[in-house]
């Protein structure tokens, strides 16, 4: 029962939970590394127009694809465009898509899953069957229609991706909440008459965060690659704008002839994913209420 009491205590003092988490996060070296890398990437993305060595659409057709050199540190693509510049500009799009779309997915998915899992019964059945329906609809037709109805629009791209990615998030969240729902501290919270929204917000969501954070960090790179696919369907960004996902898919076509066109954007994506995962794991540990008592 002390367990329940201490949990409730933490939950009531919401701010101190986050403060404690921050302290613990700072102690985790890998998480700090992840945080620093992510912050650097975001700063680079913001400063790109001022620090990029070349104009992003400047072509030199006669130069063509060349390996890394003093003039072009990461080489050039088939149009003779500087790859470093391409990756910097691509990062702006990819990071924005990654974060915004994932945030959309997170918001919808967690809310949806938490409500369904908490309410159970008929509400749960209807909500989760709706998720099943959305899973089954032909995605490509949906995207083509979105494009036709709303035109090309980067914001729409964010929403479209978010609207697709939230489904699995909702399923995971529901599973977590359902299992937490039966635990003593939640039943205790219900019995002392806390409002439902408070219970969900203060008790269920924080305790279900582990898998959600992990899935979120997995979703971000997935979303960045999905963006490339949507751009192929005509939704999303158009040349000469670019993104990491597009650079990787172009690079994959020519990986034997011009490997640098694949390796560098691929490295950028991988670095982002590693940092996010370190950060995610750190966050998970830092927010782990039960672990905190040790």
């Amino acid at each position, binding site marked *: 029962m002390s367990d329940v009491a201490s949990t409730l205590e933490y939950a009531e003092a919401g701010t101190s939970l986050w403060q404690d988490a921050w302290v613990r996060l700072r102690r985790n070296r890998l998480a700090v590394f992840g945080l620093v890398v992510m912050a650097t990437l975001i700063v680079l993305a913001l400063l790109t127009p001022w620090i990029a060595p070349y104009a992003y*659409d400047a*072509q030199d*057709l006669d130069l063509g694809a060349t390996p890394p050199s003093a003039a072009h540190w990461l080489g050039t693509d088939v*149009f003779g465009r500087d790859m470093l510049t391409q990756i910097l500009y691509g990062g702006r799009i990819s990071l924005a898509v990654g974060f915004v779309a994932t945030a959309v997915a997170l918001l919808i998915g967690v809310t949806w899953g938490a409500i369904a899992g908490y309410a159970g019964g008929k509400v749960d059945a209807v909500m989760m069957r709706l998720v099943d329906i959305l899973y089954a609809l032909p995605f490509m037709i949906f995207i083509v229609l979105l494009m036709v109805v709303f035109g*090309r629009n980067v914001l729409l791209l964010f929403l479209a991706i978010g609207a697709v990615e939230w489904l699995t998030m909702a399923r995971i969240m529901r599973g977590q909440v359902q299992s937490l729902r039966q635990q003593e501290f939640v039943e205790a919270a219900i019995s002392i008459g806390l409002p439902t929204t408070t219970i969900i917000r203060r008790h269920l969501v924080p305790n279900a965060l582990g898998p959600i954070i992990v899935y979120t960090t997995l979703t971000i790179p997935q979303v960045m690659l999905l963006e490339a696919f949507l751009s192929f369907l005509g939704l999303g960004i158009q040349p*000469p704008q670019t993104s990491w996902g597009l650079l990787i898919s172009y690079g994959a076509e020519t990986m034997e002839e*011009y490997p640098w066109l694949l390796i560098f954007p691929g490295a950028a994506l991988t670095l982002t994913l590693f940092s996010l995962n370190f950060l995610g794991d750190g966050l998970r540990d830092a927010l782990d209420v039960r672990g905190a008592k040790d």
Partner: protein
Amino acid sequence: MLALTACGGGGETNVERGNREGILHYGNGSEPQGLDPHVVTGVPENHLIRALFEGLAVKNPHTLEPEPGVAESWNVSEDGRVVTFHLRADARWSNGDPVTAEQYVWSWRRALHPEMGNLYAYMLYPVKNAEAFATGKLADFGEVGVKALDPRTLEVTLTEPTPYFIQLMDHYSTFAVHPETILAHGEMTDRFTRWTRVDNIVSNGPFELAEWKLNRRIRMTKSETYWDKGRVRLNGVVFYPTENEVSEERMFRAGALHYTQSLPLNKIPIYQAREDSPYVQAAYLGTYFYLVNTERPPLDDVRVRKALSMAVDRETLSQTVMQGSVVPAYSITPPGTLGYEPPRVFDHDPEAARRLLAEAGYPNGEGWPAVELIYNTQEAHRKIAVAVQQMWKDVLNIEITIANQEWKVYLDSVSTMNFDIARRGWIGDYVDPNNFLDLYLSGGGNNNTGFANPVYDDLIQNRAPRAKSREERYRLFREAEAMLMEQMPIIPIYTYTSRHLIHLSVRGMPANLMDSLNLRYVWLDPHQGRTNEETK
């Protein structure tokens, strides 16, 4: 890891086994829609159907001039309006039945029948009353200009003299099908029957269908009933639906294919650098161009259209982005179309382009409105659009956005003229300037630019068909094409080339303008490699 030892490098590749057994392994691009000559359209279908069936005349693989097929000879009347085909006595279906003139009448009725929904029905439109019958305006097929005078004589009456009519006899939409077989599996005009399946199909070409595994392979064996079987040297052919050209190239490298349908652009320099290169590139009867919507400002101004066209550096584009694999184009008709040379009314000229744009009211690009270039999603189209976009920006200082569209969306945009500038390609169905120039008749279904000119229409529809000689006809075509290019409703970019990897053991497969394949002449010789001269 058991699988690793069970297979592997020691085994015989398709190519090695094929060379031993006389079987050609052929990358065919995609799974065919079907094998019914009056139902399907498309290049992979063309290769398959022309291996299984044979037309009245076939194309010589070197010159593309027609030569005898099912018909051993034909005469054209003085006025050019009546063609009489004499069918050979030994032309046989694969079940042993003779191929007869009546079967042609029946087949053409099927090909033209309004209920059939044959997309290529128009191939027979030069035949008198064919169009009226196909569009339902004429119910009695007896009035259509095709008659069987006797089992071996087919008389065709044309509306106008049509110099390329004999060529059309090698197009599958004009092929005969075996009536009894079709009726055994359904109605004459049924699209959904199983008559083309293995064991059902009856055909009259050099090969017979032996196996059809969906999305896997189509296997054919040499026909024993074909009239010219003595000259068919392959024992069989296996067609693979190689949809992805990158995978196809890897299959070729691993020895799984003798022949690829295409080659990714970036691989060209690597293969070209090789000695005894399997890479074969040849001019192809097709033009890659941009359609301009002449009804939308600022593109309704011919000076703007010319400025855009003159600003494009086609030579650089061909040499760099396209890896030297295409030929710059300055007209709609590909050069060398059976002796026709298109006029050249403009050049790459940045100075003149800037001047024209200034005259049109956009000096140095000032005041340029939003204009968009669309293309269907494909790597090569993207590359060209990205390069051209930048050329327009560098030369004219104007911003043109580019946007890719999914294939059907793109088709919809083009056919409803819902675009400013759109990428387009046209591949000839037969070797004649008419096949390109009649696209831009006023209100034509494939026009899509808003270009309309009665003088042009008259040249193409009335004056050229009645020309007394090939020279006069070509002169009229050149006159018309010059008019078209002066108005520039299209911006030509390049002339297509066919690009294949062909294993050195494959012989008798000369490159030609139509990329036309006649498997009856092909053989495999693993010992004596092909010289590059053969495919030139």
